[in-house]
């Protein structure tokens, strides 16, 4: 049997023997790092492309600052990676020699395929960002932009129009033209330009409408998940959703509303009339925050656009509106009385918490109007009204309690005053007697 510590000793010897091997590995690592870095270092120290193009006038001008911060430069993609040539030579004949693989700047029609050389190459892109999609080009080909480009329309958007050219930033950089809060402006460069869009005969008010929408308000308030152009239209495969697919687009976020809409009578009615689902009532780019005034028969209500007096739909719209207003008013009434009680110093935390349930019921009722059935709206409204009844009573009780406390205080203060008076009299009586 081997002594217990022999293995330890052997391990120690093995450790000493492996020292030269470790040194060799380290040397290999250093060489590998140098091998990888030296070309890029030399490229950084010598870039004849930028030396010249930074001094040229547009359209040949390239801004060195933009290049330096671009995602490509950050990932080690240099001028020659896309354009070929030799950036180490100051001689234009050498640096831009076709023999050195130099390719001229692509035309607008060539740009998508030019970018796709790398961006559609999954194996190549994996080295930079394994999670980055590589279907942008194939999607682009299916888009209105791609289809028109294929037909020879070079005015349509190509990669560089949205992403930039030499100064492309990653999409999660707030300065990027495709960062969620900047997408609408980027699309608007063309789509809000009436003169530019004139040949296509499509509206150019989308950006203005969107900027006034609830979606834009949410986005700029910090909710980056709020929709912008590309959320509904797609980005690389951008196309306007058709009448039949509008509900599918909206339902990616508004799931319950879409389900309820599908279960109600409006779905078939809209289909038969060729009306797009959500857009008919809510519009598209300029969607406003819906209020209870949207539904009903009053001025500003949408229902009266289709439903006339005497129709069942007119009647239902009127009742649904009344039910929603009733619950909303009840909640406001309860909140008002509870706030008054709270200001009077009575603890009404549990009642205020209960009131949140009524608010939830109101939200559910507002969502359930997509069925356009009074019964389903009333179910939620009734549940909410039960809660508001309890919370309002709690508010009344709390106010009565506040009054009771004040009355009790006055009584006890009067008693205290009488006691104090009594003590004063006792002191006087005691001190009026001669001291012992």
């Amino acid at each position: 049997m081997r002594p217990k510590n022999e293995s330890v000793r052997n391990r120690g010897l093995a450790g000493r023997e492996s020292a030269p091997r470790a040194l060799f590995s380290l040397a290999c690592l250093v060489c590998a790092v140098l091998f990888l870095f030296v070309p890029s270092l030399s490229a950084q120290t010598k870039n004849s492309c930028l030396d010249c193009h930074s001094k040229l006038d547009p359209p040949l001008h390239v801004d060195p600052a933009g290049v330096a911060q671009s995602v490509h430069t950050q990932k080690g993609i240099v001028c020659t990676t896309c354009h070929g040539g030799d950036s180490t030579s100051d001689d234009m004949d050498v640096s831009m020699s076709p023999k050195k693989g130099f390719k001229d700047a692509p035309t607008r029609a060539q740009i998508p395929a030019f970018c796709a050389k790398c961006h559609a190459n999954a194996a190549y892109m994996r080295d930079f960002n394994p999670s980055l999609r590589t279907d942008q080009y194939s999607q682009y080909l299916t888009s209105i932009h791609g289809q028109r480009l294929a037909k020879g329309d070079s005015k349509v958007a190509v990669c560089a129009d949205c992403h930039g050219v030499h100064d492309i930033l990653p999409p999660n950089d707030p300065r990027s033209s495709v960062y969620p809060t900047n997408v609408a402006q980027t699309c608007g460069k063309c789509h809000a330009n009436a003169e530019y869009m004139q040949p296509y005969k499509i509206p150019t008010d989308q950006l203005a409408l969107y900027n006034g929408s609830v979606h834009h308000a949410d986005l700029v308030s910090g909710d980056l998940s709020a929709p912008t152009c590309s959320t509904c239209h797609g980005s690389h495969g951008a196309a306007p959703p058709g009448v039949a697919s509008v509900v599918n687009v909206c339902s990616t976020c508004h799931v319950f509303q879409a389900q309820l809409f599908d279960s109600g009578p409006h779905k078939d009615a809209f289909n038969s009339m060729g009306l797009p689902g959500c857009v008919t009532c809510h519009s598209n780019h300029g969607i406003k925050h819906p209020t209870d005034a949207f539904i009903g028969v009053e001025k500003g209500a949408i229902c009266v656009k289709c439903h006339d007096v005497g129709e069942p739909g007119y009647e239902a719209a009127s009742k649904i509106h009344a039910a929603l207003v009733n619950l909303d008013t009840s909640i406001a009434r309860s909140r008002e009385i509870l706030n008054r009680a709270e200001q009077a110093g009575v603890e009404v935390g549990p009642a205020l918490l209960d009131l949140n349930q009524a608010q939830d019921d109101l939200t559910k009722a507002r969502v359930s109007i997509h069925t356009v059935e009074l019964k389903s709206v009333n179910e939620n409204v009734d549940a909410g009204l039960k809660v508001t009844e309890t919370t309002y009573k709690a508010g009344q009780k709390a106010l009565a309690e506040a009054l009771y406390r004040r009355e009790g205080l006055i009584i006890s203060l009067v008693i205290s005053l009488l006691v104090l008076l009594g003590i004063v009299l006792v002191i006087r009586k005691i001190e009026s007697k001669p001291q012992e």
Partner: protein
Amino acid sequence: MGASANLRNWLDERFGWDELMKFVRHKTVPIHRFSYFYFLGGMTLFLFGIQVCTGILLLMYYRPTPNGAFESVQYIMTRVPFGWLIRSIHSWGANVMILTAIAHMFSVFFLKSYRKPRELTWLSGMVLLFLVLGFGFSGYLLPWNMLSLFATKVGTNMTDQVPLIGHWMLVFLRGGEDVTGATLTRFFGIHVAILPGLATMFIGLHLLLVQRFGMSVPPSVEAETKAHPEKARELRFFPNFFLRELMAWYVVLAALGCLAAFKPWELGKKADLFASAPAGIRPEWYFMFMFQTLRFLPAKVGPFAGDLLGVLLFGVAAAVWTCLPFFDNSKDGRGKRWITGVGVFALAYFVGMTLYAYLV
């Protein structure tokens, strides 16, 4: 012989009742222009009694667990008959008690009541003041709301600055590295068992010493009575002084009732250990002067971290302040002027920093 006389005889045979009554009848309080300051100690004692009574009532419903503390206080405030009154009086009473205790300390200081032979009375009083501040600090966490949670985090974090034992103190106070449910149970134990036990002991000692040495007369009044002995006035403690003290208690009680009825102590939002600190985290007013000082101190002062220097300075200041009677041994008995200067500075610093923290 009536029943009361029988009872008196019974008590006298066993406890020397008549002797006791004779002593009470002969106990006097000096009367002069500063006599009103004598009420402060009694008022603090009265408020301590209120805290004990209301605290015991709160104990009937309070649950010292992270899942039950806030809810039980909410239950007390909303469901328990007069629970709102008891809880509000307990919370307001704590603040008024600390105020009267601090006022009592400064009055004793400026009237030079700590002079020989009353040094131990001063020392026991200082221990009581620290205990009262401990009551305030430990009780603040018990409702388990956001403000109390983060104020306790900041407060206990200060102990971490103490050299050598700081981190141990922090872990000891918190029952771990952070403020959790373990801190709540720990603070509850300190608040309802350890501190009341110690406070009762030191109150007994303090009263015994006050009784042993009698009420101190300020040096200026002492000099006047020496020059004109005929001007010396005294008041019988019982019932004359006691009835006046009783009036002061009634006024305090009425003030507490008004505060409870018109401004019940807020409950706030339940503590969330994973939430970020809400805006405006600050300690109770009586710790505000320290908090403001630490905010003024830069991150680094010479070789010291700003917070460490602050904690060290306050520690040294508290020790010096507590030992001041031993420095003030002037032969004429009027006290040293520089010590009065220290007192004026301390009062101005305390008031100034507190006001600055709230108003600026």
